[in-house]
């Protein structure tokens, strides 16, 4: 049960940028006396903070590990971009709130069931990277981690958290192999 709620929360975080873009397009302002961009920044910071919160909540998920039997590693930071740009264009062309609500709901449902809700660019702000990991038995999983991974032999995690059966997150520090750049 807890897992489903958590997945709904992640889905909301991933799709909420669409609402933010719409509000900016409509020049919505919540603080009258301040310049517009202050309100815009507040809008953007809400999903960013919620994504941060979702990272904190991973401690309640069930634990897993990868002991190093990995055959292949593929960087996936850029995979979400095309779909995200799609969201933005949709948000920019939605004319009114009623349409937004329906378009948002449709997107929300599809995102939830597609199980690829974790392609959330906001994770990048929290210094998380995305990887496809293929194990020796040819099972492909999606891994979110702070570590910078280069070789399959780097993939060694003692304390992974399971978001769903294909998606795992490592919330440990950036220790281990980390030649940033």
């Amino acid at each position, binding site marked *: 049960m807890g897992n489903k709620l958590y997945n709904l929360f992640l889905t909301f975080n991933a799709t909420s940028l669409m609402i933010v873009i719409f509000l900016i397009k409509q020049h919505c302002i919540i603080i009258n006396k301040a310049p517009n961009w202050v309100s815009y920044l507040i809008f953007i910071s809400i999903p960013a903070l919620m994504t941060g919160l979702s990272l904190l909540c991973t401690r309640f998920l069930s634990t*897993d*590990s990868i002991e190093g039997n990995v055959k292949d590693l593929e960087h996936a930071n850029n995979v979400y971009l095309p779909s995200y740009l799609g969201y933005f264009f949709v948000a920019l062309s939605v004319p009114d709130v009623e349409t937004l609500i329906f378009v948002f709901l449709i997107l929300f449902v599809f995102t939830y069931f597609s199980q690829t809700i974790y392609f959330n660019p906001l994770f990048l702000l929290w210094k998380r990277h995305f990887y496809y990991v293929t194990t020796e038995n040819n099972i492909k999983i999606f891994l979110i981690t702070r570590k910078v991974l280069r070789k399959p032999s780097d993939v060694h995690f003692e304390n992974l958290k399971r978001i769903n059966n294909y998606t795992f997150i490592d919330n440990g520090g950036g220790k281990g192999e980390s030649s940033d750049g």
Partner: protein
Amino acid sequence: MNHLMAKIRKRGNDNKYRKITSDDNFYYKLPEDLDNPIEYLPDHNLDEDSWFAISEFSKKPYCLDILKNNFESVEYSQLEKLEIDKIDFIFSYQDKNEYYFQRVLNSHILSKKLLYLGDAFKFKENTKFIVINDIPDAIYLKNQDKLYFKKLTSITSIFKGIEELYREATEEETKEFLEQSFICLDQGFSSKNVKKSNRKRIAMAMNTMKNFNSEEKKKIFDYIKDYCPDLERKKGAFVVRSDEDLKSILYGIDQRYYTTPVKNEKRIANSIIPIN
């Protein structure tokens, strides 16, 4: 990290293994009496503190694929609540080397009303449990490539096909055995009267007999005559009236009768291990 897994009953070729939980717990303890295991022998009765072993287990046809490959918990889906009643067996993967198996019968899944006595009292209805046994049904140590177990019957549902190590003679084989010239059935005794333990002995005896030439066979029959004077004979064949008579012959074929060197006491070995 140690992992507790379940195998569920499911049709089709989908992966039937599920992950139950992972943490640093040791779900089972490595027994202290695993040293000096006995390479599996169907006609050996195990002492209480000893184990059977099968060496080079990964090469056996009944070895599970999951034991042949390296184990990664992320490859398996999480066990769902609806699947609890379909659990076939559970196993834990511990210390990157040890696998502990426990079969799960429906009667092993307890469904109880529960009052939790902790910091807060909590009443829970329909709580389901699987009791983790102190002694698992089987242990596989990967670095030794050995499977340890105490009772073959309790692991036949886990390692499909392992029963070939201790199989019962089929009805036809039993009939065939009873029709041999050195056996003379009496008082309506037929293959239907042969009980389970004797069927197992027949399966073994048939193997043994195959390797005997006619001279060795004659020796064996004389030997049975010597040790079983009560066993009646008709035209050189042993008269079998009961399962007990049959057992005497089968013990003889297995050469379980012996005489002690001191005091010449005649004995039956009810469990044997070849020395050397």
